[in-house]
Each structure stands twice: as structure tokens, then as C-alpha cells.
């Protein structure tokens, strides 16, 4: 459920004004009501987008934390942090020279 709940939170921030308002006013309280693990909540509250990406959160959704400026993030900070992660692929590279 965790990764999906992260994706859903990011979607709601962009499409539900009340979620956005709650995330700006008291993110800790909003996250308690969502089906996240303690580690996921901690990463969200720290704005650790690289960790959230490594868990499998969709980057097109994750970036909305920056564009909507929640959890202490802005575009520059988001970019600096996400760039520390290794790119993720759903399928392995084909055999042969890289």
C-alpha cells in the first residue's frame, strides 16, 4: 500500500485544494490519516524525495511536492535531492555491451 499511498498523496496535492491546504498547514497531521508506514511518513516530512523515489514513487507525481511547495520543498531543492538517486528501471538492460 505504501508506494501507492505516496503516489495518491502527490496526486491529491495537485487536484484536491483541501489536501493542499492541510499539507501546508499541518503535514504531520495529514499524513497520520493516510496508509503510510512510519518510515514513509518520516521521509515525506523530511522532504527526502530521493528515498521516496527509491521506494518506487512515480517521479511525475513526486515532483508535485516541489511545484506545490509542500514539505519544505521547492523546485531547486527538489532537483538537488532527486539527482542524488540512481535512475530506476522497470526492466533490466539487455545483455551485451553497455
Amino acid at each position, binding site marked *: 500500500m505504501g508506494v*501507492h499511498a505516496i*503516489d*495518491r498523496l502527490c*496526486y491529491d496535492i*495537485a*487536484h484536491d485544494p483541501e489536501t493542499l491546504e492541510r499539507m501546508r498547514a499541518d503535514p504531520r497531521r495529514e499524513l497520520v490519516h493516510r496508509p503510510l508506514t512510519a518510515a514513509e511518513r518520516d521521509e515525506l516530512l523530511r522532504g527526502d524525495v*530521493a528515498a521516496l*523515489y527509491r521506494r518506487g514513487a*512515480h*517521479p*511525475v*507525481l*513526486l*515532483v508535485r511536492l*516541489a*511545484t506545490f511547495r509542500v514539505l519544505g520543498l521547492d*523546485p*531547486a531543492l*527538489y*532537483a*538537488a535531492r*532527486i*539527482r*542524488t*538517486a*540512481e*535512475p*530506476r*528501471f*522497470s*526492466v*533490466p*538492460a*539487455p545483455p551485451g555491451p553497455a
Partner: protein
Amino acid sequence: MADIVAVAGVPHTPGFPTLARTDTAAGAELARRYAAVEEVVARADADVLVVLTCDHINTFTPDMWPTFAIATGDSVRGPNDDVPGVSPTSYALDGDIGTTLHRGLVGQDFDPVALRGHSVDHSVVVPLHFLNTRPLPVVPVYLNGMVAPRPSAERCRRLGRVLRNALEDLPGRRVAVVASGSFSLEVGGPRMLPDQLYGVPRPSWAGTVADRLYRGDLDGLVSETTERRIEEAGTVAGEVLPWIAAAEMAADLPLAHMDHREGEGHAFAAWGAG
């Protein structure tokens, strides 16, 4: 049978409508690049515009994510996300054509979601802003280029073929088709540029796609467009899939315009009367 009178492909960067209006060399150049495609579409004198695109998890949610979908309603609102300089408005759809295409797809073993009511994001609104100046009624068709597992390039090509064949049930109609999106583009992922919310991880792949389209080598493009290659080209590089479907729909048209520049992740292209 309906005629496919023009096929086009353009990027849909949300900032482009505003940039194209600015009194700068870059703005004027961008406006010219879209206008060159619009000219081919306008000359074709179409009466409906089919837009092949990928939703960016705005129209659909993380809870409901289709591989294919098609609009069968009569109007749609958009953008449902941020497109600077373009206010939300209502766009007329051609529900009859959407319904006919839906029936044709199901009859050929595609199972798209049929959308009676929905909203559209920048992937539809930006192409309409630049290309649908008359304006014509629209039929958005969605292909999943955004979330793994994506449909294969071959399947997307076949979708284009089935859409083309389904138009046989629409005598007298003049159909223009627009593919929307980029070939290499990272949004939100680690290969973003340090000071931007995007990056172009594989400009060489974008050049390859443009070259295959230019040469009419759709077999080659389809065989090279693997899930892995898409993901290496960026988090939204699956937007090449609507281009492949559109190129198949353009099978009977000559290429009239191809504008790809080295280093860019996208192209501006049109098939039709030159």
C-alpha cells in the same frame, strides 16, 4: 470512408504557450515552429481533430490507470493542471467519431476505457492551443506512455492501424490527427537538470526517432522502441508511443515537415499536402 487528410506531431511543454507569446527571439522561433505544423493541418481542411496522447496522471488517477482510453463524450474541460497563460475552458468533442472509433477498437480486440466525461491536461491543451485555431471538434485518445508496464510499440502501431480502419465507417469526414509529446524527457526523476524540473537524458535517441520518422522507417522505429529504451530516455519518454500510432495513421500521406534539432528531446512534424 473518412479521409485522414493530415497527421502532425508536436511537443506539449506547459511553458510553451507563454514562451511563444514573449517578445524574444526564442519565443518567435518557437511560434514559427508550431506555425509550420499548423499550416499543414489548416491546409488539409479537416473537420475533426483526433489527438493521440499520454495523460500525466492528471486525467486518470494512481487508483485508475488505463492502458488505452478514448473520449466518447461531447465536451471536455481543461487544462486540469498548470498551463501558464491558458485558462481552463471547455473544448467541443466529436462524440460520434469517438464512439465509432471506440466500437472499432473493441471490435479489433483493443479494450479502451470509454470516457463520457473527463478533463484534459497540458498534453491535450498545448497542442490544441497551437494547432486547433479554427477550432475543430476533438477526439482525445490516450495511450499509456507513463506507467510501466506500457503497451509495446508494435501494439501502439496496431492501435493506429485499427483507428485508421475504423474510419471506414465514417463516410465523408476529413480527419486530422495530432500526436502529442516528446521522445526523450525526464520530469521529476534523477536526470533532471540541476536548475530545472526537467532534463533530456537521451538526445541521441530523440534524433534516432526523428530520423526513422523522416525516412518512413516505422518498422525500424517500432523494433527499437523497447520499454527499457523508453525508460532510459526519460520518465515521460513513453510519449513516443502516440507518435508511433500517428505515424501508422499517416501511412498514406507524404511527410510534409520534419523539424528536429540536435540536442532536443522532441520534434515538430507533419504529414499531408506540402
